[in-house]
Structures are given as C-alpha cells and as structure tokens.
C-alpha cells in the first residue's frame, strides 16, 4: 500500500505492507504513526473510532470522509489531505 499525505511541510509518501482485508483510513494512519512517522498529526485525541463523534474528517483522494468510518482496500494507493478550513498541522484542521 502506498499512501501520500499532505503534511504541513509538503507531500510525503509512505510505503506500507498491504493489509490482508479492507481497512479504515484511521487504521492506515495509525499504522503510519506507530511504525513510520511519530511526527504525523492527524485527528486522534478522544476519538470514538465508530463514526459517532464526527471529528476525524479529512480528504481521501479529494473527497471528504471520516477516517474512522471510511474503508479502503488493503492494497489501495491513497492520497490524504486536510479538509477545508484552517490547518493546525498536517491533517488536523481547527474545529
């Protein structure tokens, strides 16, 4: 799986092993944060992970989605960008 993320300092590309099944975008971000880039900022504090709190929105391939509720194939190529609004850092937008 290849994931490009629009970080504050520019577009960064990450290579991940493919997941065996579909995964949520949040799971992809968790993997990158845990294994590849501890500096990545994405909405993750007090997050419900169940599509309830509605706070983890971002752009997946140009479309607004909730990271915790949007699933993608385990071998997908993804482009993740912050949604519209004032960017705090990387994928986090002030709410």
């Amino acid at each position: 799986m290849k994931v490009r993320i629009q970080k504050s300092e520019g577009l960064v590309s990450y290579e991940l092993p493919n997941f065996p099944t579909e995964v949520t975008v949040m799971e992809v971000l968790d993997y990158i944060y845990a294994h590849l880039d501890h500096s990545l900022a994405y909405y993750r504090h007090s997050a419900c992970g169940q599509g309830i709190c509605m706070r983890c929105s971002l752009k997946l391939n140009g479309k607004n989605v909730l990271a915790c509720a949007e699933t993608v194939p385990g071998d997908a190529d993804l482009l993740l960008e912050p949604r519209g609004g004032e960017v705090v850092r990387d994928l986090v937008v002030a709410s």
Partner: protein
Amino acid sequence: MHIVETDVLVVGGAGAAVTAAVEAQESGRSVALVTKGRVGRSGNTIMVGGSFGIDGESAREYCGEPEANLDYTRERLFRKLVTSAFQIGNQGMERHFVDDAPPAVARLLGWVKEAGQKFKFMSKASRWRVSGRPFGNALRHGLKSHEAIEVYEDTMMVDVLTSGGAACGAFGFDVYTGEIVLFRAKSVVLATGGFQPFSLQNSISDMTGDGVGMALRAGASAVDMEFLLFIGTILEPQYARGSILPYLLSIPAMFGPRPKMTDLDGRELSFPTEGRYKVGPADTKVNKLLMSYFYGKGIWKNWDTHGNAFYYDYSAYSDQEILDAFAKFADSQKTWHRKGKYHRIDLQRLGRDIIADKKRLKVGFGNEYSMGGVLVDANFATGVPGLFAAGEVTGGLFGAFRSGDGLTEMLAQGCTAGKSAAAYAAGAELRDPEDYAAKLAELEAPFGRANGASPADLLARLYAHCDRGFNFYRSGELIAEAYAGVRALRAEFGNISLASSSRRYNLEWMQSVMLRNLLLCAELGLHAAGERKESRGTHLRADHPEVNNRDFLFSYVGSLQNGEPAYRTQAPAEPLLPLDRNVYPNVAECIASTILEHD
C-alpha cells in the same frame, strides 16, 4: 499562557462533569469546565449501547413513568449494588447512590426532552434504553442552558496544582495550539472517566485514567484498581473492530439467533444460561461477568497461542435467517442510528461477512469500565482539601463488579460532588500554586531530550503487557510478568523524547501526558491483582478460582509516597448489610448464591 480564574474547576466532558458543573453553578459559584475532547462527544458515555435505570418507585415519583415496576424497590437496588460489588463496595456510598440518583436522572430526562432526544423506558426493568449520541446531545444541551459556565474543550489537563497541601487549580494545554492554560480555582472536581490499558478498545480512544493519575500526584489515594469490566467486542472484520455489538447480539430480546461460542480451534465454550445462572430482567448485566467467567475458562486454555479471541458461531442458521436477524436488529436501532446501521457498521454487510467466514464472528473481551479509581468519601472529597471526584474516575461504589448503573452513577455523583465543591469554594480563597513551575518543567522536558523512547512505542508495550497479564482472566505468573514490565516502562518514561518539536497538535506530547497516568493506573491495578490471591467480581484468577470472603474481604488502596506507589488494605466500613464471610468455589457460584434472585 492563558490564565483562568474561577471558584470551581471541573475536569471532564461527559455526564459526571456536566452535572457537577451545573450543580456548582446553581449553588452560586463561578464554574469553568475543561475537557480534553468535546463535551458530550468524548468519554465512555458516547459509546453507550444499553440502558440506565433507577428503582421503580422513584421512576414513577421523580420521572413520570407510571408503568415503572414497583417490585424493583430501593431496597432491592441497594442489595443488588452490595452483592454485585462482591461486598467490597462502600455501602454508605451505595445507600447514597439509591437516594441521590432519582433527582439526578430526572434532571437529565428534562434535558433529553428539551433537546428533542429520544430515550425508551422499559417498565419491567425500570430502565431507559439509550444510545451514546442522544445522551451526549442531552448533556450538551444541559451545559449550554447554563451559559455562565465557562467551557474549555480540546484542552488536555496535566496536573492538579496545590498550595499547602490543598488543591488550588490545575493546568494543561490547548491541543491545537499547544498554549499552556492555567486554571486558578478554589476547588477542583475530577470527572475524567476510567482507564483502559489494552490494545482492544471499545470505547473512546483516550480512557487513560487521567483523573486517577492527577489525584494520586496531588496526594489522594486510589482503590480497587484491579477490577476492570470486560464485554464481547468485535475483533474482525477490521471495519467493525472495537464495536460492542457482540454484547447486544447475545441478548435474546435484541437478536434472535443464538450463537454457539467456540474457541479459535472450534471447541465449544459452554455457558449454562438456565437454572442457577439464569438472570432476571433487573439483573441482565450480570451476564457480562458470567460470560467472562464461563467463556473465559475455555479461552484461557489456549491463552499462550490464541490470546483474547473466540468465535460467535452462527452455523446452525441459514444465510437468510442471519441476514433477516440483522435486518430486524437494524430496525430496532433506527431510533438512534442511520438506516441499516449500528454506528458506522453496515449491518447487512456484517451479516454477509459473517456468512462468508463460515458463519463466524471473531470476538474478544474488550475493557468497558473500571470499577476502581480515586478514593472518595460520601461527599466525594478525596482527602486532599479542595479536591473532589465523581463518576467512573472514582472507586468504591461498585467494588469488584458493576452490574449496570454506570450512567446513573455519573449523574448522581456529579450532582453531589458539584454541591460539595461549591460549598468548599464558598469558604476558600484563590491561592498561588507552589508546584506549578516544577510540574510545567516535567511536562516540557521531553522537548529538550533526544534519542529517548517515543511515548507511542511505550504505549504499545504497555498494551502488550496488560493484554497478556491484566486481562479478563489472570494468573499469578502472568500478573507478575506484566507488573515487572509496567514498572520498567515507568522507569523508561523518565527519558522519553518526541519526534516533532512543534507544540501544535503533537500526538506524542499528548500521549506522554496520558501514558504517565495510564502507567500508574496499570501498576496499581497489577499490584493489587497480584496480591489478591483469590477471584472476586471481575478479577478472575485461573490459579485461585475461589471467592474467599474469609481472607480477602477488603480493598487494596494505593497512593504515592515520594513519587513511588505505596499500598494498604481497607476493610468495608460500617456495613449497613451484614457481611457474608463464606468461601465460594468460584465467581459463578458466588453470583448464583448471592446476586441472582431465583424464582
């Protein structure tokens, strides 16, 4: 730095915090509420998929429910609390709970109505069925209708501040900007929820025992930290991981097909749900513990190879029966969830994926609630002057096992703690903290280091230790390994560093605050779990299955002495109901003999 001055500071964003803030403000004090997430959108509350209740008489008298079951009396509710706690709950608190809950629930129901939310009353069990989002909406409405309360969201609190041994505020930082926020207050209420040091999460992401950690460092004590409640939680499919659906699917009234439970090798896990272990309508939540006990016995046999995992096996049913059952379940949930869904999960898709996986759903036991927490008295005072606590962050009410009533707990305790904190503040002055500079330096230290471990890595290792040694089934050997591991992590914590020097939404920095608290909670809990060489409530020991009321009818209490944990035991104080000193062969027998009311 931003400085806020207030009479009462409430830390937390869900039921206990909102009710404490409202109560303190209605008592005539100025109030600030600060939460690391968003009010009504964070905390365990939002995950609710069940119900909450009070005794039937009060449901009629206070809450206008004319059909409420009068057989479910205050006395029965009190006895249920005492026995479910396996007798180590604080009976004084349990009595207060029965009395304090009805007006607190009535006030919430008023907010529910005003905010246009829907709760369904079940008269026989005297409970309201609810989902997390409507509950959160009602809380947000209740808070907004008290405009004088200052609200600070997305602000992570780090420590309570003290002067002369008394609480005089707290400080933290805005997670978006990193700006330090200092609250100067005459009294502080901690209402921050429980702690969950496991990789399988079924709650909000950051149940990290912040209030317990802050209270301990301010000089308070924590009690019953070994008791953690677990319920069936989806492991796979991945898109549904963390959902508490398996618990709901195990309730016959909610989902028709009865699964056969098996271990990962297909061996059946048995749970005799009839006869001695049959639960009545007011006791359905006792099933949570009975499931952990009975299924856990089988899962434990393969703990080293398979860990915390088992199957809900629906192979006795046709494809159509499974899909129809999910359609019917979805219909029963439509008051609170979008069509065909349970939270984010498309239920027909889940049904098809179960069918595709040999009609099995892969489940583990996920930590839902922590019975233990900050030791408080009947006024919810912690022993540190000016410092109070309410809700899941406290220990004492539920002892070794909470069989329902978590939502009611937070409402009732929030009210009482809010009143107490307001009364204290009325006679106190704002004081300058003595420990702010030192505590701020601790918070900022990781930015000045290099080459230390990342908080993210330490957190993953903490989960691994607790997954193996502090889970829903335990043994002395694995508890000891986990305890040593957590102690080592706590030592390593002193040398952490961060990958980014930015203070703007720095996840590692946030995690450093939470990890410190979670490590402390886990260490205290594991210590007590190791010392408690018996089983009691949710503390299920494979090597000591008996419930030993002769030798272990007390609580373990932890505090910090010069920064290191110190322990003592505490016997139940002046019990209102006589204590049962019998020894039971295991937790299930104790439940059947003392909690369940047989016809």
